[in-house]
């Protein structure tokens, strides 16, 4: 009987400790869950806010007039116009142009880094590419404004060089780093046996890279493209400085206004319906980027399944 007492005490203590441990476990789990929910919360709050503040202007202007109108003149005192088609087309063309220039360049660079370059040179170049990724977008804009814009003006004999072309070039340089690093990772993941088999069958190295390695890394490269599209369509600061910011229908050598630069440039002084229309532009841009993200996820998923 007397021996039993300490035994029960010990048992009690152990049980208490275990219970305490379990409680801490539960609490921590709840904390982790809450942290996870915060991210979802942010996305939800932003989406709901954008939808709530973006809908009224679209309703007032009319969806068709808003999306398909070709005239953007919100501060006009007699007949304000709120058509954003020029900006939608500019954003699409600008992004497409950046992809057309940036993707081939980035892909070839990735092939070089992954397959051709000597290891030491590749290491140096990789560092430089990382550095390129770290340059703030406003610096890209600044260099574009000081070098590219006067250059384009001189070259084409224009009154001013701010144009879609300048924006496309700046965007192409800006998306290079992500395209290079994502495609290089994809190329590195191609099993060596594929390439060795190709070489053993008598294919040259070039043939091997383009006919075997690249197709094998196809979905990774596609992911790089989608990533580049996402970065290009969301960029505002750099192109605000080189695009000229007049809402013309886009053509390569005229001043243009992107969806992003409309918001960034006009929010400061906008009032009433103009301000609300800027929120609506934000909503349109948000939907664009959601679509691109969905596409990116699709590619990444397929990539995983493929491997």
């Amino acid at each position: 009987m007397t021996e039993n007492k300490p035994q029960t005490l010990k048992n009690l203590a152990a049980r208490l400790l275990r219970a305490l441990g379990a409680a801490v476990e539960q609490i921590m789990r709840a904390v982790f869950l809450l942290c996870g929910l915060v991210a979802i919360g942010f996305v939800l709050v932003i989406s709901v806010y954008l939808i709530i503040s973006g809908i009224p202007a679209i309703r007032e202007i009319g969806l068709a007039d808003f999306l398909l109108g070709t005239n953007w003149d919100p501060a006009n005192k007699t007949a304000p116009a709120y058509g954003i088609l020029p900006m939608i087309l500019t954003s699409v063309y600008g992004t497409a142009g950046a992809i057309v220039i940036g993707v081939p360049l980035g892909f070839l660079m990735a092939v070089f880094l992954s397959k051709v370059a000597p290891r030491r040179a590749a290491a140096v170049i990789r560092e430089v590419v990382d550095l390129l990724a770290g340059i703030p977008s406003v610096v890209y804009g600044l260099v574009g404004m000081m070098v590219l814009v006067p250059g384009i003006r001189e070259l084409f004999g224009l009154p001013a060089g701010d144009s879609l072309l300048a924006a496309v070039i700046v965007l192409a340089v800006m998306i290079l780093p992500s395209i290079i690093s994502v495609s290089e990772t994809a190329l590195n993941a191609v099993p060596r046996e594929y390439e060795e088999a190709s070489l053993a069958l008598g294919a040259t190295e070039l043939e091997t890279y383009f006919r075997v390695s690249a197709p094998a890394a196809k979905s990774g490269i596609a992911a790089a493209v989608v990533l580049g599209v996402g970065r290009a369509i969301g960029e505002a600061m750099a192109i605000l400085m080189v695009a000229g910011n007049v809402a013309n229908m886009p053509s390569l050598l005229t001043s243009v206004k992107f969806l992003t630069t409309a918001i960034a440039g006009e929010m400061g002084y906008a009032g009433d319906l103009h301000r609300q229309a800027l929120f609506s532009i934000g909503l349109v841009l948000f939907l664009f980027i959601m679509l691109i993200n969905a596409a990116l996820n699709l590619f990444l998923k397929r990539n995983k399944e493929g491997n």
Partner: protein
Amino acid sequence: MKRTLSLVLTAVMCVGLLAGCGGSTESAAPESTAPESTAPESVAPESSAPEAVSGIVNTNGSTSMNDVMLALKEGFGEVAPDVTVNYTGSGSGAGIEGVLAGSCDLGLSSRALSDDEKSQGAVENIIALDGVAVVINPENTVTDLTLEQIAQVFTGEITNWSELGGADAPIAVFGRENGSGTRSAFEEIVGVEDACAYTNEYSSTGDVIGNVASNPNAIGYASLSAVDDTVSALMVNGVAPSEDTVKDGSYAIQRPFVVVTVEGAELSDAAKAFLDYAMSAEVADIIAAAGAVSANA
């Protein structure tokens, strides 16, 4: 950690929102009682002791006067710390209407009052003048344009500098973004409202100056106080823009900053003190720092 941070941020934002909403109603309520309570202690407001004045002054109107009003508010806070000056930027028209309807103490207008408005009892108190300079690249040989020529350039009727006596080069017309106060002032005074064919639009005065400075084909406009020697300011109708020519009215592209009061309506002591302060010669530096030319120095 993240969550607490977000909670704190959210709380701060909510408080900010509520404060923003409360501001106008809160200030409107004591406004009616303030004059009665302060009246006995300051019988003659224009006499030596403005510190004795307390109360709230609600001003409403021109968004272009934002900088000047903020500067005056700050300066007045040092002279009369017990007076709260509220400024709402809702546009000149709304400001004039507001003071006529009695919904604010002082209306703010960045244009001269119309005869119609004057006949309704609105009184013009010009506190400052805002000059807009037309700037070109220093390499450009053009020095003098008429208001009409400027209008033709900005509407796209004249597209080459040779038509204006300059080199054979296309004109790049630079302006400010939609909604900018400088843009509306310039377009209004030159008479090219909503008719401008801009080559480029920039969202700040500095951008306009910088781009005009780097482009030999460029013409742009900027608030007079922002013009530096990287660009040259054109003479308009033969008059070079300067503080003096703006003040004596000979430089054409200018507009007044007006504080509007109502004839016959008595101002509260606080409002009167603020108006006297804004009209006094001592605020010339404050107004100049805010980018305009004092009308009373």
